[in-house]
């Protein structure tokens, strides 16, 4: 009886040991010890860089083709890639940094938000490198570089700019007999169109909303109305959401939801986010960045884009922020890393390739104004809308100080969620501001 069991156990052990032995995996030589290869006559050392980024399998393919293009131009630099899904990327990178081991820490990596990590001292200050090589910073959209700066120095070079435009389904507008949005649209025009586009069934269920927009993007309305979240997004002293300009904008967004013109934030995420509801026709418009273009093109939607409507006398206020390429302070191949990083952010290098892939709206003006972006031959037709928003992009969506993530995530956004769920802004916003001020005081702001 027990012999049979013993035999089974032993067999099991033997199998697992064999499996272990058979699959002895040889890790690649660490980047710290670049293999000296004989490159024919000239004995050129090949440097290996570790390059990390997040992305879906499709995006990872684009990144890999960019790496291949770079290696073709620079035979003495080898790029090894490391890809992680967006949701786990930061866990992984922070573990690597915490280990302090240069052989596993990526030399060049994708990052957002740059200032938070720069404050922790894990990033290389790029100022000296920019100065030495004469890299041109003036080609970036206004205020965009600020999203990758800390303490007055540049720590990253943004790849793209995450500004929002208004996407609209032409077929739904036609069916409802509503004229397409124009560049001159104001908030009032948006509301007038929304009235015609929204369909409420007798049961009270909303069959189609006019607009789908994430609650977290409320700052767009606030900025358009000359309002702000804090008095200074770098070194704040108080919360300014209670001021009339900001309150008016918050009330405007809340009213859109209360009148069933816009989907409530909770319903939007429940329904799978703005991509899903736009595809299924549950909304006629969404306000979102350029990341949606490839998904809509793939699904063959009949859609176009337009600038976001502004209040009468208001300003365009797209968010000037974007994930940036950075260099690890612990890199032991900084010379090669800078060569790669600056090539990624050059007009004929990485920027062009990423723009051609249709995945980004480029950070460099020269690329955005070139045929690569404007005449790609793919929808949306009105690509000019992106340029108009980009020319007017502003800082204001994100705080560029260390505790911003905590402040926004634990106080501001949860507070605003109450409004998107139907509570009265007049009651909620002062409460939120009170908590924000207390938080700032507690952490010694202004500094």
């Amino acid at each position, binding site marked *: 009886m027990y012999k049979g069991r013993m035999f089974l156990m032993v067999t099991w052990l033997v199998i697992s040991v064999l499996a272990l032995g058979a*699959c*002895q995996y040889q*890790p690649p030589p660490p980047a710290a010890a670049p293999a000296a290869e004989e490159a024919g006559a000239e004995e050129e050392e090949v440097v290996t860089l570790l390059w990390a980024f997040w992305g879906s399998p499709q995006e990872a393919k684009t990144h890999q083709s960019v790496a291949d293009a770079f290696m073709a131009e620079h035979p003495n630099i080898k790029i090894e890639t490391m890809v*992680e*899904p967006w949701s*786990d990327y930061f866990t*992984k990178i922070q573990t690597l940094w915490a280990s*302090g081991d240069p052989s596993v820490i990526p030399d060049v990596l994708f990052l957002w938000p740059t200032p938070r990590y720069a404050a922790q001292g894990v990033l290389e200050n790029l100022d000296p490198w920019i100065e030495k090589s004469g890299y041109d910073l003036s080609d970036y959209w206004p205020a965009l570089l600020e999203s990758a700066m800390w303490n007055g120095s540049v720590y990253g070079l943004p790849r793209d700019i995450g500004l929002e435009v208004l996407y609209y389904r032409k077929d739904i507008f036609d069916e409802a007999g509503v004229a397409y949005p124009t560049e001159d649209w104001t908030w009032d025009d948006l509301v007038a169109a929304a009235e015609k586009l929204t369909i409420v069934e007798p049961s009270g269920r909303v069959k189609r909303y006019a607009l789908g927009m994430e609650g977290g993007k409320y700052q767009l309305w606030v900025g358009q109305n000359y309002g702000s979240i804090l008095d200074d997004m770098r070194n704040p002293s108080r919360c300014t959401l209670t001021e009339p300009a900001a309150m008016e904008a918050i009330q405007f967004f809340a009213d859109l939801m209360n009148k069933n013109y816009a989907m409530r934030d909770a319903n939007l995420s429940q329904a799978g986010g703005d991509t899903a509801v736009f595809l299924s026709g*549950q909304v006629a418009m969404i306000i979102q*960045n350029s990341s949606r273009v490839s998904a809509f093109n793939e699904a063959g939607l009949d859609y176009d884009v337009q600038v976001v409507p502004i209040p009468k006398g208001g300003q365009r206020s797209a968010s000037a922020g974007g994930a940036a390429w950075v260099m690890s302070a612990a890199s032991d191949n900084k010379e090669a890393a800078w060569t790669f990083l600056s090539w990624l952010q050059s007009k004929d290098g990485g920027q062009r390739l990423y723009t051609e892939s249709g995945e980004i709206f480029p950070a460099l003006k020269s690329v955005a104004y070139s045929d690569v972006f404007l005449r790609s031959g793919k929808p949306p037709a009105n690509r000019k809308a992106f340029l108009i928003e980009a020319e007017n992009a502003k800082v204001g969506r994100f705080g560029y100080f260390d505790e911003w993530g905590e402040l926004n995530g634990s106080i501001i956004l949860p507070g605003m969620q109450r409004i998107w769920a139907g509570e009265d802004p007049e009651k909620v916003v002062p409460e939120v501001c009170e908590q924000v001020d207390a938080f700032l005081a507690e952490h010694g702001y202004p500094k």
Partner: protein
Amino acid sequence: MRSTLLGRRHPRSGSWVAHLALHGALLAGSVLMLLPFAWMLSTSLKEPREVFAYPPVWIPSRIAWENYVETVSVMPFGRFYLNSAIVAVSITALQILTSSLAAFAFARLRFWGREPLFMLYLATLMIPFQVTMIPNFILIRYLGWYDSYKALILPPAFSAFSTFLLRQYMRTIPMDLDEAARIDGASSWRIWGQVIMPLSGPAIAALSIFVFLGAWNDFLWPLVITASLDMRTLPVGLSAFQGQYNVQWHLLMAGSVIALIPVLVVYIVAQRWFVEGITLSGMGGR
């Protein structure tokens, strides 16, 4: 099936109502449990635009088999599978070996400082994995095991929880058996292998299932300790379908169906042990 409510095999008149009610309740429970799985299967065969359609679509208008083809082609799924299988099987085997030896010592051998040592061992259960993750990582790097099977398998091969579970079970075996074996000249090794282990069958079977499932589903450690696509396990590979801006639900669900199959097979084959294990350890619903 013998109903516990009735406690007799041949229900008399009137008791069939109770029977019916009981089975009705059980049926409702199982439908509730199985719905998410049905939805997963349905979503995995939909085109992207139907995933969030309202009203919900149970039967896709067109069965999109290509989701499975795409899922398998954008990722080296076969490799993830192999890795998950190797890692889960090895962890299970090694953990049963190490924890049964430790449990044997704590339950059957008398030595100085046994109880305090055991308490100390148990105390490690109180430390969350996130706390030890970075020290563990540095240790693995130092040993040169980063991004290898060793790193995936060896750290989880030791477990205070499994030791505790087996020790509790082994303590229920009468000491007379060990003593009889010792008088006949058996060593401790032999007592472990030929007396205690065969008698601990139910506990070991139950534990194997939990350890295997835990290893199969583990996410955080494989994520931080592997770097190349070739060393990824299924859960880490699957999470790649969740992008920064959108989740490819149809592909994610197709991948989940593929990943679920072996666990389902294990469950069907070892159903009896599952039930016994849950009643034995009170670890239901983990």
